[in-house]
């Protein structure tokens, strides 16, 4: 086993990628400024008010009617990112989306129609939306993204995983830029399932939203004149197979603590370099950093890892903690984002000053 050469193998061929554009659609605001304002004031909102894609893609209106809500949220956040600091040449941009449940409402509706009206009435227009990568497909078409495209579904870590995939892809030279993030829709079916299954931490309300960020090489950002908001120093993942069931949330403190420690070590950071930790519920017991803040208040679950990474980038850029966590200046250069999932997956993303 060649563990001794791990550091050599992981040494990035290029500098740390940067986050430039951010698009967020959430219950506390759409767009970077509205979202940050909502976050700073401690607003709570679990549903996205209006999704008006025609404002962003006026030439694609004919396609909107056939789209499911999850795809709409992904396309909305992608457009907001595009309108933030642009994407550069879209044909060379990769795309990564995390979604745990896909369009649960659409799946339920399709099956209900099958039950009530028989196979002959199954709707051919609805079926393509039921694959988890439908939203990525629509966003790719709308924005002309022709690079590699992946959709990740490992529950609550999938949004962070998408951003980690983008980071690794740029570091290895596979591509130079990727629009990456996560999305989840909220509807009656998911609300009922969450309640009936009682499978999530009590403090985690079901919510919906989407966050997409443009991750690109520093060279590409500089060349197109985009201002980097933060560097992504790395993304690490682990799992714990020791929970009670593969279907429930049961991540212990030890594996979370171990992964944070490994991530800091491999990023060349000391705990004192960390100015804030944005953690998902269930991971707080593994944290040693003093300024942990729980993104649970946003109610954007389960793809909210992507939201936390976006928040981390804004924190690093703005250097000020939000009012409800004290409003103090961010101490240290790094923000650590921690997510954990049903089934035992854990992910840590570290952001640094641009």
């Amino acid at each position, binding site marked *: 086993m060649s563990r001794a050469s791990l550091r050599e193998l992981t040494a990035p061929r290029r500098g740390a990628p940067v986050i430039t554009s951010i698009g967020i659609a959430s219950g506390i605001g759409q767009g970077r400024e509205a979202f940050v304002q909502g976050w700073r004031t401690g607003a709570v909102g679990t549903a996205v008010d209006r999704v008006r894609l025609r404002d962003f893609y006026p030439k694609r209106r004919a396609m909107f009617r056939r789209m499911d809500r999850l795809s709409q949220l992904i396309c909305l956040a992608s457009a907001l990112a595009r309108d933030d600091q642009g994407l550069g040449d879209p044909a060379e941009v990769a795309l990564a989306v995390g979604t745990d449940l896909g369009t649960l409402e659409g799946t339920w509706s399709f099956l209900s129609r099958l039950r009530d009206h028989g196979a002959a009435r199954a709707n*051919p227009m609805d079926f393509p939306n039921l694959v988890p990568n439908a939203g990525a497909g629509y966003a790719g078409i709308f924005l002309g993204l022709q690079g590699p495209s992946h959709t990740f579904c490992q529950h609550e870590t999938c949004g962070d995983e998408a951003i980690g995939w983008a980071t690794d892809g740029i*570091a290895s030279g596979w591509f130079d830029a990727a629009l990456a993030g996560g999305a989840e829709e909220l509807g009656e079916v998911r609300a009922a399932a969450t309640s009936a299954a009682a499978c999530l931490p009590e403090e985690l309300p079901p919510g919906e939203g989407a966050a997409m960020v443009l991750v690109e090489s520093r060279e590409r950002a500089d060349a197109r004149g985009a201002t980097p908001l933060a560097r992504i120093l790395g993304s690490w993942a*682990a799992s714990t197979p020791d929970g009670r069931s593969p279907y429930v949330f049961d991540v212990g403190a030890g594996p979370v603590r171990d992964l944070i420690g490994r991530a800091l070590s491999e990023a060349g950071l000391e705990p004192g370099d960390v100015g804030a930790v944005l953690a998902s519920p269930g991971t707080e017991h593994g944290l040693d950093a003093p300024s942990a803040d729980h993104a649970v208040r946003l109610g954007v679950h389960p793809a909210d890892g992507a939201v936390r990474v976006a928040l981390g980038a804004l924190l690093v850029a703005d250097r000020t903690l939000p009012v409800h966590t004290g409003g103090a200046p961010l101490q240290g250069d790094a923000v650590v984002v921690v997510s954990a999932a049903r089934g035992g997956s854990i992910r840590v993303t570290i952001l640094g000053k641009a």
Partner: protein
Amino acid sequence: MSGVVITGLGVVSSIGIGAPAFEQGLRSGACGAAPIRRFDASEYRSKAAFEIHDEVRPDPTRTAGIPQTARYGRTAAFALAALAEAVHGAGLHRDDLTGGVHALAFGGSTAGMPEAEGDLLGLGEGEDFWAVAEPERFLSTPVGTTADVLARAAGLRGPVSTISTACSSATNAVGQALHWLRAGRADRVLAGGSDAHCRLTHAGFCALSLVAPERPLPFDARRQGMVIGEGAAMFVLEREADARARGATVLGRILGFGNVAEAHHLVQPKDDGEGAARAMTMALRDAGVEPTRVGYVNAHGTATIQNDLSESRGIRTVLGAHADAVPVSSTKSQVGHLLGASGAVELAAVLLGLNGGFVPPCAGWEEADPEIDLDIVAGTARSAAVEVALSNSFAFGGNDSSLCVGHPEGAA
């Protein structure tokens, strides 16, 4: 940098459970299509599927310590059996997977849907689903749950990833494994895919009129569409230096991976095969392999009119005149379209062919389509010493992927 090799594979398919039976089926040109028995298909356009009705549990002495259970549904049961065979074949045991960084990259689309949909579709008049449904049943429906089951069964503590890009899912999972190993993200990766036949997907593809009534005939002028299958394939991937150091048998090399978005249409490929060609070209460039070294293409080959035409044009674009000398087949002619798992089972077919000196056939192919200018492997397997092969998977969302696979003893 050390290359990435496959040292274990396991297969569950309608033409054979376990790699030896699967290989025998490939060689003989077997076709696993049969009338659907899992549910009443009398209302559907296609009443056939490639279902698995035999016992999928592997020999208890050959499970490598990985527990087998049907508790988590058919998708997971297929995957567990394939995983056990792969780990055992790699000369490993579950105990070997708990140290170092052992990761899982999984591709699929159905997870627990075959079981959960029955609760909704079988609901009686006035019954409330949430009152009668077993929570464990609907908790098993998110596609990521199959990977959770596998990771627990194998005792993994490294990264666990589920990629769900419809019909390219498992191919992308193998690509993810390749990237993890190259980057040092993992010491060993268990990768592959699994899907089970369910009414949701059957009804959907029937509604889209993309299915054939009895069996698929990829690249044949008579083709009418796909027929859905079920099954799984899992692999053990590791860096070649590590595999050689422990004396493992190398089954093949993953030389390169390509994945692109067409950005064209949600379900229809570009007529000219441009996306397919870009994916194959990316895989070859990633591998550092010239197109003239390609000796076989395992096509996506769904047997729909449009896909086969588009893919054949893409192959011709990439290989040029060399395509005249390259055998092409679609394993979907034998095992059906396994959707999210299709790329995994087709990669298994490629590896078995490379090792066994044959290329799998396009079962049932008889009548050439005048618009498809390729060397289709008809009937049964053809003897061939192939050094480099391409394995293609194309999906809804315009997601096109290709793996460049090398012979175990070939040049890296």
